[in-house]
């Protein structure tokens, strides 16, 4: 009985470590992009009050080091991090066959998807 609990604990700790690693990596990449964008804003004389870059042109604009695109890319990365947490957790609960937390993950995923649809409408 105790060894089963320990095993469950260990698996949960593995999930925690994995999620922590993803979050730290995502935050650092995002901040580096923000910093790069800010430096280019200051030195290039680009008008300051420009809007975020549309997703359709972000790759092209990143290649020409458009500061707004760099910041937009950083923003996209940081905004998908919670989704990364959720998908990692869902995969973990499917593997460990934990029904209730798995169902919670699916419900939350549906909620987030519904909110995206609502936003983009």
């Amino acid at each position, binding site marked *: 009985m105790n060894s089963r609990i320990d095993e469950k604990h260990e698996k949960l700790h593995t999930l925690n470590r994995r999620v922590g690693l993803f*979050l*730290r990596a995502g935050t650092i990449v995002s901040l580096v992009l*923000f910093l790069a964008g*800010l430096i280019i804003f200051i030195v290039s004389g680009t008008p300051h009050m420009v809007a975020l870059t549309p997703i359709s042109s972000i790759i092209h604009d990143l290649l020409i080091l458009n500061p707004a695109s760099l910041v*937009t890319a950083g923003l996209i990365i940081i*905004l998908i991090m919670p989704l990364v947490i959720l998908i990692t957790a869902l995969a973990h609960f499917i593997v460990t066959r934990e029904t209730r937390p798995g169902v919670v993950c699916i419900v939350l995923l549906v909620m*987030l998807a519904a909110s995206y649809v609502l936003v983009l409408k």
Partner: protein
Amino acid sequence: MPADVNIWILAGTGFTAGFLGSMLGIGGGFLIVPIMTLALGIPIQYAIGSSLVSIVINACTATGVYISKHMTNLKLGLLLACTLVPGAVAGAFLGAKLSSTVLTIIFGVLMLYVAYSMIPKKPRKLTEEQIEAQKLVLEKSHDRHAWLDDSYFDPSVNEEISYQVHRPVTGMVTGFFGGMISSMLGVGGGIINVPVMNQLMKIPVKATIATSSLLLCFTTMTGSLIYAYNGYVLPYLIAPLCISVFIGARLGATIAHRVHGKILTMVFAVFLILTAGLMILRALNVIGG
């Protein structure tokens, strides 16, 4: 909207917000929004959008640290997020539709409430019978949601702290309003989540703060997305803000234990009351600006 903003004031605001926010565990929105609107003349919707993005960075940083130390109750966090997310969507839509005057007044009133809640109060005394009755009710209902129970290692007492989660349904209902207020006003929402989880759900304070950080990731992400889609997030405003919030939060977390908490809380409460008063008076056109 001004054609340009002073980047150093913005960075200073972010640094102070991150620093105080991580020390007091309430997120930085209560500083960022008023300073951006009062000192920099930025319309409140842009201030809220920027504030939400900076809180996502702050929350992801804190969650990354807490979850690696196994202090976050991931299952509980995901469960509460199921109602927080719809609340955040509702709040962001309301925030984008309401006029600046109405938003400013709501924000000012909430700041006054936060200031009031920070003033230390005497705990309500319960009789032995009341305490026993409460325990019995909690034990009876606990079995259904024992899967949410968790534990973490607390280095300050050098032992593993195991705890049970009580009243998850109440937590979910309250969470909806927490999410709504968070994205409507560009604040973290921790000021609602933390007392609910700690007082109502009986979760130890360290696990509460860690789980609240995880919740902030979901609520502020949803709110940020809606504000960004409506054009209220500008790259030049969020870049310096997020970088300085990150640096301030890291520094605040490092030296938090060296500062006398009571003094800091009182100073912050006075600051909130003054700023709230200024915001309400300006919204009502009593003072110019």
